[in-house]
């Protein structure tokens, strides 16, 4: 049963991945171009114009590298949640006419987002290697970061996907919330620049430790102290449980409500 689910999940992910780039001239290359474009824009805006620099205590002096470490997980989380929100409603034809575990549709977009991230990550590692800044000593930290990231994305994704079936405004609300979440996470600026009285709130943001884990992992750092990870651990676990429970409860009537 589980094996079949994995097979079907693979097929859904493939369908998503292939379907997205089918018919476009650059096709699959878009998964490189998109993050590079964000990187260029943010670097120009925050580094060149606004003179933000990674600052003391960060492992790189290059703003672009500092930024990309944060953009990588962010883009996967954002893409995963946004696409999961409409994963059920967009596949109304499937959900209404076929009998299959519809939760796989959510897992598939989360997985596809992760694949995009992996491609961008590969490219990033090559760039680091070419510029002589590659350090593999911290990469194992990703083994902690990625599962937590998947749990967080999938959990929120399941919740949003289920609610969106009944309340279509969810998709709109979500993109607004995510925009806020991006700027309230130290991705385009270091945590050290945040005034003291806000800093402690930002540390409660589960993405703050996730971004920190990525920076440590990709720039040859070490495992951050466990207590700084608490918001991420709690939020990931909670959202996964709540998301799956809510999705399961509402799933039997999806076909009637889409």
């Amino acid at each position, binding site marked *: 049963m589980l094996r079949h689910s994995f097979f079907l999940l693979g097929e859904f992910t*493939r*369908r998503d991945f292939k379907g997205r780039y089918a018919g476009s001239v650059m096709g699959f290359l878009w998964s490189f171009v998109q993050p590079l474009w964000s990187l260029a824009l943010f670097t120009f805006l925050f580094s060149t114009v606004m003179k933000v620099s990674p600052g003391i205590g960060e492992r790189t002096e290059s703003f672009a590298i500092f930024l990309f470490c944060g953009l990588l997980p962010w883009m996967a989380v954002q893409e995963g949640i946004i696409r999961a929100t409409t994963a059920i409603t967009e596949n109304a034809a499937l959900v209404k006419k*076929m009998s299959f575990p519809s939760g796989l549709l959510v897992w598939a977009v989360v997985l596809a987002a992760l694949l995009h991230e992996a491609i961008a990550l590969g490219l990033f590692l090559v760039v680091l290697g070419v510029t002589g800044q590659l350090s593999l000593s911290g990469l194992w930290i990703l083994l902690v970061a990625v599962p937590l990231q998947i749990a967080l994305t999938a959990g929120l994704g399941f919740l949003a996907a289920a609610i969106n079936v*009944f309340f279509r405004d969810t998709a709109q609300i979500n993109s607004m919330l995510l925009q806020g979440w991006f700027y309230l996470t130290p991705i385009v600026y270091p945590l050290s620049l945040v005034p003291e009285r806000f800093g402690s709130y930002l540390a409660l943001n589960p993405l703050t430790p996730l971004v920190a884990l990525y920076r440590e992992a990709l720039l040859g750092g070490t495992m951050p102290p466990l207590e700084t990870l608490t918001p991420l651990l709690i939020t990931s676990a909670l959202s996964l449980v709540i998301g799956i429970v809510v999705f399961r409860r509402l799933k039997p009537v999806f*076909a009637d409500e889409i």
Partner: protein
Amino acid sequence: MNDHIVSARNLSKTYRVYARPVDRLVEGLLRRLRHTPFHALKGIDFEVPRGEGLGIIGENGAGKSTLLKILAGITAPTSGEVRREGSVASILELGSAFHGELTGRQNIVLNAAMFGLDRNQVIERTPGIVEFSELGRFIDQPIKTYSTGMVMRLGFAIATQVEPDVLIIDEALSVGDGYFQKKCMVHLKRDVNSGGTLLICSHAMYYISAFCKRALWLHEGKIEALGPTQEVVPRYEAYLDSKTDRAEEAPEIVEAAPTAPARIDEVRLLTGNTYRHKETLELEISWSCDEPEMAFHLGVGLNRPDEVEVASFSSHRSDGGPWTGKTHHTVRLEIPELPLVKNTFKLYVFLLAEDGLHIHDTSILEDAFTIEYEDYPFGIVAIPHRWHHGDDE
């Protein structure tokens, strides 16, 4: 443990109908009822033994599709229980699971996986699916380039080659060209004969009669009748007849395209257009087909202009045909001693496939012939009869 592959216990389904989306939110948050309930199914009980076909009939809105969706596991019943043993595949809408950007072959994998096949089974059965679908080189083209008929062929090919223990079909057979329809029917018939279980919902009673030992008649969400097809279907038809004005209900007409594999060339009355009671009528029907291997039966319907069915003649029920071995056929139907007494009549000529079910082509002769009457009888036919007075004995 019994040998019922599908059993439904006291199934009910109630939909909540909201006037506006916001009502749903209000109800959810404030616990104030804002919906009107719609009872799609009420207390449905039945069982389907392994290897039997069950036909689900009823008018539009009677709950047929809802019942099939519950049986297929797509939606949950509001109350009651469905038990299914073995694998179930459903075709509620052909091709609904396809992704237009992916090729036919890629869609086979995805679709077959959704029907529950694992990777090895998919690899094993793909050639069979490609062959059944007859898509040829199109199988490696994106589905979006397919015609509706091609999509349908692929959809049906997958669902049948999956060989589920239970196959659920909702009206899916009624699309596509005649040739493929026939192929599907032959396949399904073989499936039922070899122990497959079939649940079909259709408005076409000949499908129900062909595949199903028993029929379930749904009326306004309840079981109106459940029993042998030959008992339930006539009751349902009688009900429909009593409801609709017969004149509005014309028979199903299939007219073959000039490119169809078989088409009627000509229908003519050899004995003219006016008859008297007890004269002989001869009707000549000629048709062409592409393949000499094709075998045919003919059906002729005799109707009054207001569509009252007066008589029917079918070669597969009366020792005519099947006719085969040629690409051009001419057959003569002789009706000696016309029992008709008056009126003008209409003739329907059906070119049928070997199974006597599938219609290749139809030809209609409006005002085909008139009976000139000499006296003024009531009714349509004169039936030989005698009178016996008690004093005569």
